């Protein structure tokens, strides 16, 4: 036993952030049981402290190189640590601002189980981005899913929230089953649960393709890529707004990490089938997401359909499966998370002021608080992908390797993806500017006057980061990522 622990110790040192988070969750559970009713603020503050400690531990981990821990089931590497830091940062910022959202403000933050669940979600994401073992992937994905299901139903009200949670649960369960079937096929083909390429080089192409397609469904579901996107509009509009802030960011980060490990393990054996598999999904997501978003009048539903189309863009890097492609995908994930945070924070604010998320009814609200409208404008322009925002530089770093892949391999696939990406960027303009347009109109009631400092900080921060990364600095970030994803 002693030397087992001694063997385990260096691995555990590398897993320090996850252990901190786990310890924090357990502590929070106990505190919430005991003091939750009397001191709900304490649970919230503790949760923030735990995420902060996790973030610090992650930052310290960045300097260390790549290591494989726990018998090869987890891979701690700088690139995945970047994703974990992104998740922790998003969680920290959002959990800090979440009590200002309409539901939590009017009904109080409850006994604190919301924070425990959110931390569970974060823990699942952190595990997911570094898992190389199929069982561990499933475990992490289920943790993310279950916490999400409960959070979506958090408002406990009958109607949209319960319906959204049920839909999410059913779709998620179905997709998990598909994914597990894919995993079982993968195990059968390689004889091992590890996602390393050695096991799959000898596998027959068609069977590997089918297994990969099934296994991908888990990641695609979390990304809300078509055709596994049907849950997104209902969950985004039915769940409490603050939960959408978590769901729009953390699971996507996890899905990108999961895709990376899948690609490392399976793509070499698949050869040309891997890009083909993803291209179909990308094109479908772009088409469906953009066309359906054009008709939306509810801000979060619009965001949901836009996230379907953004999933298409996020999948461009994995389709390329080159270090620069992955670096661009990870960078765009970061940009996407920042933009989603800003959009949901602004939606939270306008929901507080006007009581509704139907942006046609936000008329006139832009006049008085022009700073909010400006920040939301920068965020929406970033989501379209126009300069001088990081949305543009993100898309640029995705398009450059696409063109190079086309000219070096001559595969028409990449040209189709390139053209599709740019054409649907233009289509996106038509719906992303609608909320901004409504805000800029005159008339309408003024709504309750409110300056919410926390949401203001989130919105200002995300707009600032969007502009900063849109003008400079992104080249260093993508360069660093490409170095570590080689």
């Amino acid at each position, binding site marked *: 036993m002693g030397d087992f622990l001694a063997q385990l110790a260096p691995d555990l040192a590398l897993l320090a952030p996850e252990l901190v988070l786990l310890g924090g969750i357990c502590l929070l559970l106990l505190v919430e049981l005991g003091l939750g009713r009397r001191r709900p603020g304490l649970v919230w503050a503790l949760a923030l402290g735990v995420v902060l400690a996790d973030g610090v531990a992650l930052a310290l981990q960045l300097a260390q190189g790549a290591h494989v821990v726990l018998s090869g089931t987890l891979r701690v590497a700088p690139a995945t640590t970047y994703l974990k830091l992104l998740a922790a940062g998003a969680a920290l910022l959002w959990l800090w601002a979440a009590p200002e959202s309409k539901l939590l403000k009017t009904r109080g933050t409850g006994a604190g189980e919301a924070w425990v669940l959110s931390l569970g979600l974060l823990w699942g994401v952190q595990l997911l981005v570094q898992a190389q073992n199929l069982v561990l992937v499933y475990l992490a994905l289920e943790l993310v899913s279950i916490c999400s299901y409960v959070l979506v139903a958090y408002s406990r009200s009958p109607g949209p929230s319960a319906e959204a949670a049920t839909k999410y649960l059913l779709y998620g369960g179905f997709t998990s089953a598909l994914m597990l079937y894919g995993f079982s096929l993968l195990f059968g083909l390689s004889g091992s649960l590890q996602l390393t390429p050695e096991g799959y080089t000898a596998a027959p192409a068609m069977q590997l393709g089918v297994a990969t397609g099934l296994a991908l469904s888990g990641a695609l579901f979390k990304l809300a890529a078509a055709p596994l996107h049907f849950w997104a509009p209902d969950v985004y509009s039915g769940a409490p707004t603050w939960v959408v802030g978590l769901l729009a960011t953390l699971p996507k980060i996890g899905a990108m990490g999961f895709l990376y490990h899948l690609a490392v393990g399976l793509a070499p054996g698949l050869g040309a089938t891997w890009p083909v598999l993803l291209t179909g999904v990308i094109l479908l997501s772009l088409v469906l997401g953009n066309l359906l978003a054009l008709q939306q009048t509810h801000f979060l539903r619009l965001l949901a359909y836009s996230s379907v189309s953004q999933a298409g863009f996020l999948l461009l890097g994995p389709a390329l499966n080159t270090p620069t492609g992955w670096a661009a995908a990870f960078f765009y994930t970061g940009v996407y998370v920042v933009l989603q945070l800003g959009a949901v924070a602004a939606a939270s604010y306008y929901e507080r002021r006007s009581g509704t998320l139907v942006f046609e009814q936000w008329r006139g609200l832009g006049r008085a608080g022009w700073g909010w409208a400006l920040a939301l404008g920068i965020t929406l322009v970033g989501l379209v992908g126009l300069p001088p925002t990081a949305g543009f530089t993100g898309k640029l770093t995705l398009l*450059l390797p696409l063109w*190079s892949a086309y*000219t070096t391999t001559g595969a028409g696939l990449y040209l189709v993806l390139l053209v599709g990406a740019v054409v649907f960027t233009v289509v996106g*303009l038509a719906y992303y500017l609608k909320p901004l347009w409504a805000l*800029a109109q005159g008339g309408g009631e003024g709504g309750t006057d409110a300056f919410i400092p926390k949401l203001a900080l989130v919105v200002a921060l995300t707009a600032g980061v969007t502009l900063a990364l849109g003008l400079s600095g992104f*080249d260093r970030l993508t360069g660093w990522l*490409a170095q570590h994803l080689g």
Partner: protein
Amino acid sequence: MVGLLSWLWLLPLAGALAVVLLPSRWAYLSRWGTLVLTLVQLILVVGWVLPAVGTGTLLGPTPATPMPVALYETTPWLRLNLGSLGTLAADYALGVDGANGLLLLLHTLLMPIAVGASWHEGRRPRTYFALLQLLNATVVGCFLAFDFLLFYLFFEVMLLPMFFLIGGWGGERRAYAALKFFLYTLLGSVAMLVVVVGLPFAQAGVHSTTYQALADPALRAPGAFYATPYGQQVGFVLLLVGFAIKLPAVPLHTWLPDAHVEASTPISVLLAGVLLKAGGYGLVRVAYGFFPAAGQALGFWVALVGVVGIVYGSLVALAQTDFKRLVAYSSVGHMGYVLLGAASGTALGLSGALYQLFAHGLVTAALFLLVGVVYDRVHSRQISAFGGLWQRLPRYTAVVALAFFAGLALPGTVSFVAELLVLMGAFGATTDVPLWLAALALAGVVLAAVYFLWAFQRMFLGPWRLAGGADWEARLTDLSPREHLLLWPLAGLILLFGLWPALGLGPITAWVAAFFEASQTLLAP
């Protein structure tokens, strides 16, 4: 150390920020501040920037083909590591030479005039002037950029303030017009983005996006996508589509009439006077600069598009009953000359194309201001609603007459020089532009005379007649002092550059000559 050219676009940006932060009781300062800033810009350009044109750093694809770029400032900006493909190096590079000097002058001239035309803007003035300054900054940056990625950045960001200016301060169908404008021009921009993305990659190494580097023949080394004539033509057509939407060229022009009619007068002035010119400038600098061989090969088609634009634009203008729509379609017609001149492949034609950008900017600005004079007073633009205006509004009629004669390219006005150069170039074309096509362009001159003079006769000559009766009579006063101040400088410049074209043509012809010599290196098979 920030150079003079950087100040030219940073000042308006700072101005926009300052205006937006003004408290509401000092809102009137926004228009004064903007006016002062645009005049400072004008003084800087006329006093320091323009005299330097034709001197300065020598850049060129090879040392044997130098092209002087004045006040050139460059700092490394982006180094995007793309793994095995090398590094994409974009620099922050600004410069002024014969191609963009006159356009810079046009812009800095039209800005204070637009501010003057917006003087009585009562709807949210601070936001309006902030957006105007943002537009100012991005247009200046677009003209001054000497790096393709930087140019693209400014070219795209230009669309945002224009969208909000049309949509926020326009007429009844402004939402539709603004969105159509944005979608159309964004589509063109992303076509350009494909070329931005692909051009720097010919071989592994450092790929720079500066104009100098992109004109390097080594980029066309065998193996590169753009080495083959096919690849070059693909690149040229993509760029052409992008800029043709902006120019606008028929049949990609349908956004223009709606945008102009719904935009307010000063916004129309800037849209027609400056933004369209960015499209023409980009066409010459970027499309013809990077792919001259493709430009030569496709000369007939580009000229065809140009002449179709001239004839079609003029014919449709003839059918208009709305004064502003007539001017908008005349814009479409006049921009066809730019395409024709560029397609001719001759120094005369290209000089004419660049000069037509300048000339048309002055003339169309004057025309839109004049439309605005009547619209501000009686809120009608219908030609049939007016008659015999010369009797009570003689000064207005005088300026309109001058502007109309400039529009139909009467000798003595600046557009005559421009169109003459274009037509001379077209008739002597070295590309395969047939004589009949150039002759057809002459029909455009005649048609312009027809629609302008007919409109003039209906609205200004004959018996006094108003559709609105006594109410309109009371409101139709002659030009106010402010309007005099806006219009007479424009009229004076139209005549000045028409009677003394060497003033403007000098730097242009020098640049065009150097440009043709430099592009010989790219025309080698």
